[in-house]
């Protein structure tokens, strides 16, 4: 039994070596190279509104500073512990969402959580979703890269909130073309169903004979 081992073990050992080699090279590729790109970014001043993706990309520069962001309130206003959480998006869809007929921007949403005092939420009447355009707001507050009060979340603690443009509910125009496609597809489906039932009956009859 042992006599066979070296031959069988060899392929196993080769596999281990190959594995180790691949892991080693993967590790080498991961070593720090030119990936300190964080330092090279250019960021806007603190006076005007800051883009949220800019804020997130360069968190270290804005940490603990008062910033102003502008965008659409989306999702839910979550009231808790004497305050509330809002999510504010400032991507291109915040101006005109895909559901409203906006163009593809090639990006996902870009948003941030904002902690506001309970009385500030009275200002918010619409939050963005499939059927609503959320209120467009300007929020000034302190940005935290890792908020100690909120479990390390990257957030803004709002000091002021101003509604710039009131949101609204919108209707989706009914897409008659899609209904036509449904009706068109119904014909082949019904036809195929009839053919299938006939062939099944024929086969059953043949089998019973």
């Amino acid at each position: 039994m042992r006599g066979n081992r070296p031959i069988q073990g060899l392929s196993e050992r080769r596999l281990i070596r190959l594995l180790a080699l691949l892991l080693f090279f993967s590790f080498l590729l991961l070593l720090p190279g030119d990936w300190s790109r964080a330092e090279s970014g250019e960021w806007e001043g603190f006076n005007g509104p800051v883009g949220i993706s800019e804020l997130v990309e360069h968190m270290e520069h804005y940490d603990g500073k008062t910033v102003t962001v502008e965008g659409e309130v989306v999702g839910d206003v979550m009231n808790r512990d004497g305050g509330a959480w809002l999510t504010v998006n400032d991507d291109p869809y915040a101006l005109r969402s895909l559901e409203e007929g906006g163009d593809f921007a090639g990006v996902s949403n870009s948003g941030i959580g904002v902690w506001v005092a309970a009385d500030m939420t009275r200002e918010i009447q619409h939050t963005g979703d499939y059927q609503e355009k959320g209120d467009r707001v300007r929020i000034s507050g302190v940005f935290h890269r890792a908020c100690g009060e909120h479990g390390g979340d990257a957030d803004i603690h709002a000091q002021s909130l101003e509604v710039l443009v009131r949101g609204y509910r919108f209707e989706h125009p009914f897409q008659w073309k899609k209904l036509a496609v449904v009706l068109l597809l119904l014909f082949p489906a019904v036809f195929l169903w009839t053919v299938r039932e006939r062939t099944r009956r024929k086969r059953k009859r043949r089998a019973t004979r």
Partner: protein
Amino acid sequence: MILRPTREDLKAIGWGVGRVILGVGLLMTVPLVTSLVCREWNTALDFAIGILACFSFWLSMEILCPINRDLTWFQGLVIASGGWLVAMVFGAIPHYLSGHFKSYLDACFDLMSGYTTTGLFLLQDLDHLSHGMNMWRHLLTYAGGQGIIVVALTFLFAGTAGALRIYVAEGKEEKLLPNVIRTARAIWMISLTYLAVGTACLWAALLREGMPAGRGFLHALWLFMGAWSTGGFAPQSLNLLYYHSFLVEMITLVIFVIGSFNFALHYAVWTGNRREIYRNVEVRSFVTTLLIGTFLLTLSIAREGVFSGLTVIFRKGFYNLVSGHTTTGNSTIYSVSFYKDLGFLGIFSVIMVMAVGASACSTGGGFKGLRMGIIFRSLRQEVRRILSPESAVVREKIHHIRDIWIDDAMVRAAMFIVLCYVFIYFVGGLLGVAYGYPPHIAFFDSVSAGSNTGLSAGLTSPLMPATLKLYYIFAMWAGRLEFVSILALVGFAGVLVKGRRARHP
């Protein structure tokens, strides 16, 4: 001599794939009803089109490919691998019609990501998506977690031996019960029970955190589906960061850890064998790699100094590490934070645990704990053999439901699959680097796709090159099916062209 597949082979494959697509069509009825209830008429039409397309395909296959024999192993393998691809194309119909995808390729990417419980997505403007579409995204990841073949097996295959062949071909080898159809139904029973309990817990937590009841229920259901299936999808673009809730994070963490365990382990515990939790090789492997990962991550976080305090390290470090290890992809930090705030060792530890992944026959991906256990024990066996006298017989065993002695064939099979995973991780990483992405980001996202995790360091976006999208689709598919049925499909395509025609007497 390799024979070209016969007409009977092709018919059997067509018949099987047709049944899988019928399963996809039946699944679409759930989001269709959701859309109707929420008065999202256009979304309802998207699903009606998808359902009719699936039904027409299934009926065509039933008419053109009648079978009167049971399926062979080879046919089962090709149905499983081919079925996933065709299911991707049909399942992407409502996605594309929703108007949230720039191209059909992007829609297919999200479909494959959902089915394979990966969680990467190219969908644009998620925050304005309809409830019906969100239901579809999460439902397909929930169904994909059990395996779409399991879905089809549960309802659409009569108790044939061929059913077992398709089931095994989907990367699941465990049989909880002697009959494979009953095994598939047992998997569903386990998942549905957890669905009821998990959704109720999350709903209560979301209500406490200030969400309205209606949306809270839907979010709870979707979060459960994303976490349990280890898919990691969430209904808002900020993922778990949207909720700012320790409670919600804790519940989802428990759900995805449980979801990442082997269904055979679940079944053993359900039937009273509680000791299995402590003895099972996959649980031990998971705990070991998690401890190593946690050690490295904590070191790195301490060095970076961004996150401090036990709760913060738990929520921003440990949570994402476990999410990566269970190949879930739920996240409580921004993509950039993976390399900016966790540090080099931190990102390395997340990549490492993602590569290792969850348990075999679970909703997770990666090498799997079982294989890690086998390889570790075989290495220990070699070391013991070197240290023992020449005449000594040295053997190692692992415990997985029962004691299993390790042999060379088992080790070789485990090594082969691990090597295949390393290969797809490596090629994906190199491709990313070739396209100009920084290596750590390219490898992070490549491992994430290949191990069906879904965390992203920022590479995956609608603007990524089409070649990379195609490669990631392949990596997610191959990683989920664990290569064997993929190789069978490649072999099938090869013999279709080059095989010799069988001569009939």
